[in-house]
């Protein structure tokens, strides 16, 4: 499980996270919603340490991630090698897919296992093929990203994240850049992953999809989680006035 306590972060003098607490249980799917600029993407990126944070802590299965308290009481970043090891427990999928353009779909997927986890080539290859088949792209194994549609690229990106056998998957608005008719194929892949019971955190504007797959939804405003609850509680019986306003605008 993930346990986040008092997470704080500023960009210069602008606070973007003001003490966020969040627990994610094993197998749980949590959606982060809120206006743009509310800190939801930053929170997601902090979990994976793509952003450094100024205070608070993140624990995965009890182990504190990214920072260690030193003898002098100040906190220090973990070494690069340790950070790499920690990152291997997570997979992240980005809004813009971010596949490596010079690699085929299969090469993209096996890169992490091969070189970060030192899985033997044949085994990594088999894993890559299995995962690409799972996201419905067995016919596109040798295609380069430029030869794939947005939806297909995003499915490769999901397979790439899964290839690390992560404990937690982080999704950053993964359908926002897609043409509407391609959203469904990516959402189908996520639905199919639910049976794996991997922890998932998804930043999303697709409230319908969040309601369908998330166990809980966290509504962020001005760098804090203002309301946290089941989809029904958040979307049908919101208490916070800014959340009510947000939901009204989203309809």
């Amino acid at each position, binding site marked *: 499980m993930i346990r986040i306590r008092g997470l704080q972060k500023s960009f210069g003098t602008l606070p973007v996270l003001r003490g966020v607490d969040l627990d994610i249980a094993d197998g749980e799917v949590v959606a982060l919603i809120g206006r743009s600029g509310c800190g939801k993407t930053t929170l997601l990126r902090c979990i994976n340490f793509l952003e450094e944070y100024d205070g608070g802590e993140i624990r995965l299965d009890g182990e504190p991630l990214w920072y260690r308290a030193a003898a002098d009481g100040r906190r220090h970043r973990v070494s690069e090698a340790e950070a790499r090891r920690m990152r291997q427990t997570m997979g992240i999928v*980005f809004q813009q897919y*971010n596949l*490596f353009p010079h690699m085929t779909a299969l090469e993209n997927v096996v890169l992490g296992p091969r070189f*970060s986890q030192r899985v033997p080539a044949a085994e990594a290859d088999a894993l890559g093929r299995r995962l690409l088949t799972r996201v419905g792209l067995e016919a596109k194994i040798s295609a380069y990203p430029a030869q794939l549609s947005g939806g297909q690229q995003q499915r490769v990106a999901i397979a790439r994240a899964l290839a690390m056998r992560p404990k937690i998957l982080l999704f950053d608005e993964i359908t926002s850049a897609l043409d509407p008719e391609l959203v469904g194929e990516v959402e189908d892949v996520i639905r199919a992953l639910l049976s794996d019971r991997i922890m998932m955190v998804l930043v999303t504007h697709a409230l319908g999809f969040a309601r369908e797959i998330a166990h809980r939804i966290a509504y962020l405003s001005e760098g804090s989680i203002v309301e946290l609850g089941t989809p029904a509680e958040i979307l049908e019986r919101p208490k916070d006035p800014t959340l009510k306003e947000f939901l009204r605008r989203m309809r």
Partner: protein
Amino acid sequence: MPPGSFGLLVQGAAVSLALAAAAIAGGTLFAIALTPLAFSRFAVVRALYGLYVYVVRGTPLLVLALLVFYALPALDLRTGPYIAGTLVLVLYVGALFAEVFRGGVLSIPRPQWESARSLGLPPLAKFRKVIAPLVTRYTLPPYVNVCVMTVKASSVLSIISVWELTLAAREIIERTLAVFTILGVAAALYFVMCFGVDRIGRWLERRLMLRGFVGERA
């Protein structure tokens, strides 16, 4: 055209091409070692990189050639003009290549760095599998540009008595006084060599772009 002079010029051109090839190979390796310094965590290292590039770029190649040619014996290194000449070119184009590569590294989009980081790739794998292939594709045109320039820059080495195309031409001219014929042929030979380098570059570009960069510009 004075008898026998064309053969001499072609021999000279072969030496020029060999010098350029050695300089391009050596300069590329040198630049691969230099470029990471430009991105060092330590300001001193970055400053050293900048200093080297500024000094080499800010010195005429002719002056640099004379400097190295006279400096090596002063350092008790008896090397002769060919080694000294090759070294000059390597030092010179190494700085230019390093800047080309630095530009390539800077043009890797941030999301690509983040993908590599999120996969937890160790530094060497990150370099081999992500940085180097992307930089190669981004920098091929300016890289070939420097290669073409290197072929022509090798003519400067005639000043330190490296016998290559320009020195060969000057020797023939002194004997025969056929100034325009010989210089014309020499110029034509330089053109052919540069054209050849450029063609190789285009060919590489097409090959690499086909592998995954189709439609990248869209």
